[in-house]
């Protein structure tokens, strides 16, 4: 496969990914709650999007009409979004340590009313793809060229509304809509395969008329190649199924804790220190 990322760029993204993982651990352990494992599986997906040259945005002007949209439909992964937005310059990194504190715009789940850098208020699963479709249709109406990226969880796609949006996006041939499913294999109460098995995901979406790809969601080159293919699909909406690991980067710590889902649990202080050492 052609490598889209230069060696310098890749090195930069690898470092950024590590830094963002450290932010996620620190933020959630400090807050005493939150969803670090759900955030860690999406780090390469967001780092490549925001820093690999795929998402066009202006940190000083979050409402810039021509910006590309990124919607975190799996809103409980807010820590990864906040960490990326801070590194991108939307707000100071120091603000990350106010996560979930009273008065902070960095709420437990993204709230666009209080944090304008957030594209959509989420936290009730299943709704982001419809909102993304709305943005994509507005681009067509306004003759704008922006693209809309939506990140969903593999448990989240249990929701019927997701499939309503899949069908409608195919009907309206929105080539500027790109859905990414963070296929980390777990949802809140267990492995997706046991709770509600929706594999094979790409086949299901392609039967609706979507362009689909399946990749290793932690391989920066693969993620970059998938984004670049996804934005060149003409008038077909595009799905990227990213095979990921929930809690990626701190597997050894999760091993010790005996929990590979760790859904909605911050690391205890000692475990967080070990995790930070792994990510140094």
């Amino acid at each position: 496969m052609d490598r889209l990322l230069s060696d310098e760029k890749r090195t930069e993204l690898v470092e950024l990914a590590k830094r963002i993982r450290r932010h996620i651990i620190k933020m959630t352990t400090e807050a005493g709650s939150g969803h670090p494992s759900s955030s860690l599986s999406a780090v390469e997906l967001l780092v490549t999007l925001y820093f690999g040259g795929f998402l066009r945005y202006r940190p000083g002007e979050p409402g810039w009409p021509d910006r590309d949209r990124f919607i975190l439909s799996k809103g409980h992964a807010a820590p990864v979004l906040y960490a990326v937005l801070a590194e991108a310059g939307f707000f100071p990194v120091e603000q990350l340590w106010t996560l979930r504190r009273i008065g902070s715009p960095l709420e437990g789940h993204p709230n666009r009313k209080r944090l304008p850098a957030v594209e959509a208020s989420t936290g009730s699963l299943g709704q982001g793809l419809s909102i993304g479709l709305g943005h994509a249709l507005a681009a067509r109406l306004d003759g704008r060229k922006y693209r809309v990226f939506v990140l969903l969880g593999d448990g989240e796609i249990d929701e019927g509304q997701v499939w309503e949006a899949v069908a409608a996006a195919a009907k309206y041939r929105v080539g500027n809509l790109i859905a990414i499913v963070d296929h980390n294999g777990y949802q809140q109460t267990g492995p997706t395969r046991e709770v509600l098995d929706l594999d094979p995901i790409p086949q299901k979406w392609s039967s609706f008329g979507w362009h689909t790809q399946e990749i290793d969601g932690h391989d920066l080159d693969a993620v970059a190649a998938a984004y670049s293919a996804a934005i060149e699909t003409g008038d077909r909406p595009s799905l990227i199924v990213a095979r990921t690991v929930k809690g990626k980067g701190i597997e050894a710590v999760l091993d010790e804790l005996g929990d590979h889902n760790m859904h909605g649990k911050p690391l205890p202080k000692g475990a967080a220190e070990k995790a930070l050492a792994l990510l140094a």
Partner: protein
Amino acid sequence: MKIGQRIGLKLGKATRDAFGLALAEVGREDPSVVVIDGDVHNSTRTEYFAAEFPDRFFNVGIAESNMVGIASGLAASGKTPVVASFAAFIMCNAFDQLRMGVAFPELPVKVVGSHAGISIGADGPSQMGIEDVALACALPGFAVVVPADEPSTKAATRAMIAHPGPVYLRVGRPKVPIVYENGCDFQIGRAIEVRDGVDVTIVANGIMVAAALEAAHLLEQEDISARVLDMHTVKPIDQTALQAAAEETGAIVVAEEHLHYGGLGAAVAQTVGELCPTRLAFVNLGDRYAESGTPDELLEKYGLTADNIVAAVKRVLD
């Protein structure tokens, strides 16, 4: 939780825990009880039922509308289905299914919403069920129950299963003070007088019952005698208790962990307005969403405190 500490109330289990434990108990006695989950049984505590009765437990994934539709079919075939998710998700996401599949055909589906109110804390407003009581009350034939503490939630869970029609039961995330140290005589539709008084009545439910008791204690020090009614059933509301309160105390304050419109306050105002117009004041969340924070910080910032009830009492007595 700080509420109730000033008057020495002991902290009991969270009402979601009390519900989950009672549900497993009822499951042992009544084989018609089945439970439908939407990937949250470790949050709603239907996990205890699931562990004991795996064959009568269905985790259908993150799909609240589907959960309620399935419950409708199970009820029509003679089962007693309990559908449980976060209050916000089960009431808001599945409202049409509750309407067409449960209320309209009058099927005995038991709907349980956990993580109700702002006292869930740091997860923030998207996870807080604060419209749920209004929505449930809007559904014809539904009984709407908001218990105050661990013992009354256990009793309410049993009453919910025994009740012939559809029920909405609202439970919360944090540990809450025990109001009924010695158990309680819980009947759907019958308010419990937890403290007698003659100058004013505080009508409350959920965690605000403990806050009301605390307020009554503070008021006593100022020679104001406050009656406290635990109006755990918002619908059908206890008209007799409200009429007596209006006639005997002449002023009513309503306290709830819910939005202003469509909750307990609205139900009390409608009833009292018709039976015995009385001065009223309300302590609730108003017309807004909250934010992230600790439960105590949020209750303070959004005005759900004993001190605020005291202030409201002074307004109605003024």
